[in-house]
């Protein structure tokens, strides 16, 4: 509790708390009513929309991880990360569709899709490592604003590369993932949503295992907590930070390919909007927390899905408004994010 509230009269503190409680209960009641009524009206549509939301959420989660990993280790909000995702999408269009000519769902094209997934991940990982090496590393001990502005600059550079590479107009193409859907018990499931969800979940599991269970992962967490102490353990801090950028980049590359394959269009400016939503996911979950990024991504995806797709609701044109309203509300009541740590550590 801050000193101002501590010195304020007790009664006003309690009134404030009470108001907070009441408003949380009210918001929860509205949300539950909204979801409940839609579910009862049309349970199959509710579930279909939920699945689409989950698949969008999976993409947000993959991108959000890149923000959260980098923030966790060097406390930099990497504004260029959304544009890295964009380059992943553009790369996968050029490699898979243009170079390999993979259009339509054939066994050969699925194999090529798998190959492109790996290459897109390697491409974005390498790019992210190079960006850190050239732009951020020398600013590591500079005041926080310097790397932040640099990240904005890198974002423009990447967008420019995307513009030169892909052209100024969006490019439409035939995807390998089928744009059709199938029906289970009346619930419509788009094939590409299923593909994205089933590709994303193993990636998330691998990443979380790597960070939490391996020696390199432990080195990352140590570096995040205290760089000099990590050096005293024999950890190569620069290499560890590069590895974090590589991991974040790989996730963005995977998201880029899946995005391109699910919508069948790429443009040089998709990084801004998706990056912003993914960043919001990371903040919602508690920036710096891996599980938070995943949770935040899926939550925003599902909320957006419900908002856009349910018959009884604000509808698609309110999509961004709803997402950011949720973010603002959460920041007011829980500034550290859903899974973030609000308390400072004992030193």
């Amino acid at each position: 509790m801050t000193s101002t509230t501590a010195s304020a009269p007790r009664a006003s503190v309690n009134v404030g708390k009470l108001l907070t409680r009441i408003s949380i209960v009210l918001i929860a009641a509205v949300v539950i009513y909204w979801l409940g009524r839609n579910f009862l009206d049309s349970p199959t549509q509710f579930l279909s929309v939920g699945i689409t939301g989950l698949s969008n959420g999976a993409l947000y989660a993959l991108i959000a991880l890149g923000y959260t990993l980098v923030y966790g280790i060097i406390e930099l909000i990497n504004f260029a990360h959304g544009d890295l995702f964009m380059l992943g999408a553009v790369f996968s269009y050029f490699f898979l569709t243009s170079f390999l000519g993979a259009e339509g769902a054939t066994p050969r094209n699925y194999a090529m899709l798998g190959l492109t997934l790996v290459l897109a991940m390697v491409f974005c990982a390498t790019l992210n490592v190079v960006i850190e090496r050239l732009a951020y590393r020398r600013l590591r001990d500079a005041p926080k604003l310097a790397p932040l502005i640099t990240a904005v600059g890198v974002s423009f550079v990447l967008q420019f590369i995307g513009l030169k590479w892909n052209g100024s107009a969006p490019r439409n193409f035939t995807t390998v993932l089928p744009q059709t859907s199938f029906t289970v018990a009346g619930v419509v499931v788009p094939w590409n949503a299923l593909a994205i969800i089933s590709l994303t979940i193993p990636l998330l599991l691998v990443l979380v295992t790597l960070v939490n269970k391996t020696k390199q992962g432990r080195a990352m967490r140590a570096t995040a907590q205290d760089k000099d102490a990590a050096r005293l353990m024999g950890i190569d801090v620069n290499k560890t930070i590069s590895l974090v950028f590589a991991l974040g980049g790989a996730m963005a590359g995977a998201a880029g390919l899946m995005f391109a394959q699910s919508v069948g269009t790429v443009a040089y400016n998709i990084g801004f909007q998706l990056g912003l939503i993914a960043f919001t996911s990371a903040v919602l979950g508690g920036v710096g927390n891996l599980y938070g990024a995943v949770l935040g991504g899926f939550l925003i995806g599902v909320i957006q899905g419900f908002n856009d797709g349910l018959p009884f609701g604000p509808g698609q044109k309110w999509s961004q408004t709803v997402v950011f309203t949720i973010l603002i509300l959460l920041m007011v009541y829980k500034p550290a994010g859903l899974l973030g740590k609000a308390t400072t550590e004992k030193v």
Partner: protein
Amino acid sequence: MSTERTNSPVMLSVSDLTVAYGAITAVQNLNLEVRQGEIVTLIGSNGAGKSTTLRTISGLLKPKSGQITFEGETISGKPGHEIVKAGLCQSPEGRRIFPRMSVDENLELGAFLQKDQELIKATRERVLDLFPRLRERIDQKAGTMSGGEQQMLAVGRAMMGQPKLLILDEPSMGLAPVLVDVIFETIEKIRESGTTILLVEQNALAALRIADYAYVLESGHLKLEGYAKELADDPAIAAAYLGGH
């Protein structure tokens, strides 16, 4: 009991070391030596440049000029992790344990470069025998432990790296008097097991009592050096550095 200084080979040698923070010179033209098997202590009042010296030896700071060699190899200018690989571990000032990790994970990080699992296990047991308190708290988040417990962890963690030379920056800071004695006994035990020690201590009298050789720093300069026993008996030293402790 104490090693004769001239007999053992030089392990660490610092020559003409100057370290600066921007325009502020913290250490100037420092020369010192640590010989194999010794406990060497570096004493001096607050801000004398002791921690700066140790941080530079461990590669956390780059010297402005001068040279540091460890077992005959130049280590000044090398990154910190390579210096650890050479066999030099430090328990830094202010503990610097990893607060969001458990005691166990902190210890395992201390052995980050160690490959021999059996040896890691044996060292872990040795550390936990030296500090039974750590065994009781093995799964606790290190940041939630008391200052004294964290200090034990910092020393134990540095031991996990199988150092040939163990650097301790104020290992008794924040400890209750009875635990201070335990720490000093522990340092002697570590030395008896074959590890050479470079020790910085606020508690200069206690440090001189267990050390073989001592260097006295004053505002970044070497003021004097000599056998620890002789310095401990020197009334001028006692008046300047040992009073109040």
